[in-house]
């Protein structure tokens, strides 16, 4: 029954193709320019196919004075630690809120809901972080804002609600405690939703520069995004330290190469991301 003219199919395909190009071309330009020589950029501008190729920007990024490797390490640590803690907190909270035995679960839901619709804003947030000593250290990148999202907790709760309660009962009969049931019986079942929230948290950590803008002045604790944000100062530092070595420090290509390096891991895990993001978003958005 799904027959239709090939003409309309072709038009639709052409429109979709054009949109795909619109989405991809600018990033392709970034990738290509990261491999261009500075001279080629000055003469021909940013292009999709540089006239002169060079890997100089990437070599620069990993030389001895560059802070890129250090920032990379900061981001990796913050992302791994933060995501792990955040997923554990969200799973545990979601489990309790999904549990029919929890008599206070409506009160708890209200308690979380209030903070989702009313927030005190930036200044109090900053004051609290300062009071907690969350400035100029790695925890400033891990704890504030990112370590727990009620939205992700609700995703877990909604998922666990779909699991038959008889599982818990049989666990209780077999003598398992609530914690054991949560981690030995329900945790493996929740793998899909855990994958989804893991990715939500990981992307939020990886792409975050706000915490660093607000709370980190010491460049030793700059995450990758913050270093990239401040790349101008990084560039002048590198060229100051390298005077005499190279006459034209690759400025533009260095920016582009750092951008590419920044999204590198995302491209690597992208196939998984895509699958679970769609799944999770559909659960969260449509059935939420």
């Amino acid at each position, binding site marked *: 029954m*799904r027959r*239709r003219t090939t003409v*309309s*199919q072709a038009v*639709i*395909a052409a429109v*979709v193709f054009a949109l795909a190009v619109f*989405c991809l071309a*600018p990033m392709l*330009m*970034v990738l290509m320019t990261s491999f261009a020589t500075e001279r080629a950029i000055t003469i021909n*501008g*940013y292009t*999709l196919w540089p006239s002169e190729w060079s890997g100089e920007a990437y070599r620069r990024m990993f030389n001895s004075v560059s802070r890129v490797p250090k920032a990379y390490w900061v981001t990796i640590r913050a992302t791994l630690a933060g995501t792990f803690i955040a997923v554990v907190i969200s799973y545990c*909270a979601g489990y309790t*809120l999904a549990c029919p035995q*929890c*008599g*206070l679960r*409506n*009160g*708890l839901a*209200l*308690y*979380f*809901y209030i903070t*989702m*619709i*009313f*927030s*005190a*804003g930036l*200044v*109090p947030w900053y*004051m*609290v972080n300062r009071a907690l000593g969350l400035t100029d250290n790695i925890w400033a990148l891990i704890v*504030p804002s990112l370590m*727990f999202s009620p939205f992700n907790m609700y995703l877990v709760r*909604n998922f666990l609600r779909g699991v038959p309660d008889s599982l818990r009962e049989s666990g209780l009969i077999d003598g398992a405690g*609530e*914690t054991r049931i949560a981690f030995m019986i329900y945790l493996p079942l929740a793998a899909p939703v855990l994958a989804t929230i893991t990715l939500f948290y990981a*992307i939020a950590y990886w*792409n*975050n*520069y706000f915490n660093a*803008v607000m709370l980190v002045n010491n460049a030793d604790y700059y995450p990758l*995004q913050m270093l*990239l944000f401040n*790349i101008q100062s990084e560039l002048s530092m590198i060229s100051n330290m390298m005077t005499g070595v190279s006459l034209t420090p690759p400025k*533009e290509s260095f*920016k*582009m190469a750092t*951008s590419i390096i920044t*999204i590198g891991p*995302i491209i690597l895990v*992208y196939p998984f991301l895509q699958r679970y*993001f769609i799944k999770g978003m*559909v659960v969260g*958005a449509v059935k*939420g």
Partner: protein
Amino acid sequence: MAEAAVGAVGKQRAHRLGPRGVIRELARNRALYLLVLPAVLYTFVYGYITLPYMAIAFEKFNFRTGILSQWVGLKNFQYFFKSTWAATVTRNTLILNFLFIVIVYVSSIVLALLLNEVRAKRFLKVSQTVMLFPYFISWVVVSYMLQGLLNTSTGLLNRIIAGLGGEAVSFYSTPGYWYVILILLRVWKYIGWTSVIYLSVITGIDGSLFEAAYIDGAGRLQSVLYITLPLLLPTASILTLMEVGRIFYGDFSMFYAIIRDNGSLMPVAEVIDTYVYRTFKLTGNPSLSMAVGMYQSLVGFALVFGSNALVNKLYPEGALF
């Protein structure tokens, strides 16, 4: 989500428990409450302990005296609302968010309908993958990509303009272009994402509806207009309505990465969130910043609450809370 959080609160036993009952309940299910404790503490620190600090809006803040600084009443609010910034940042936040929402909404629906018609599976998969990609890229990277396109001398767009015989445009000092640029960026980043969600709604539609329509002689276009669209619109609209609730909150990560401290673009691209940041961090006036933040929190609260109540009424399943 709706019933658990709001609707049912009054009715269920959670509220009927007195202080004694609560303690007994906590003791009986202590393992359960231990599990939720980290989330409760975290939310307490960032959601509740922060509230008293809002008093700073009525003070002349001093880091030494902290929250007990000198009381000045509504002075900070008066200062803000008398300045031209009040109108500028409110207008920019509302207009830009409104345009973002409407244009992403419409274009994503159109794209989802188009994707649904694509029969070549492989092509569909590849184009979806490509269009979803921008969603994962940080705004900082996007800002450099944009510079690569718009730079006056080396930007790809200006090279194309020059190639066509035009004169290079100095985008970063011409505010007039920026509503369009920001909207295009928004569409670029979110169209793939939003349309994938919409597409999943479409694929969830009962296939027998289309069969019945086909038997009754409906064409492709007719079944899109009379089946797909009417069934997609409620969900899509509700998702969008939730965003409308957040219309008073600008996307700081987006605006600050792209506009930064470029004064010539501020008349069109300074939003409440970047202004709050600027008055706090760059001009160093926490009290003024807090006053503006409180204005945002209160109006924003009314809007979120209102839109959520509306969603709850129209379509309880779709409410976020």
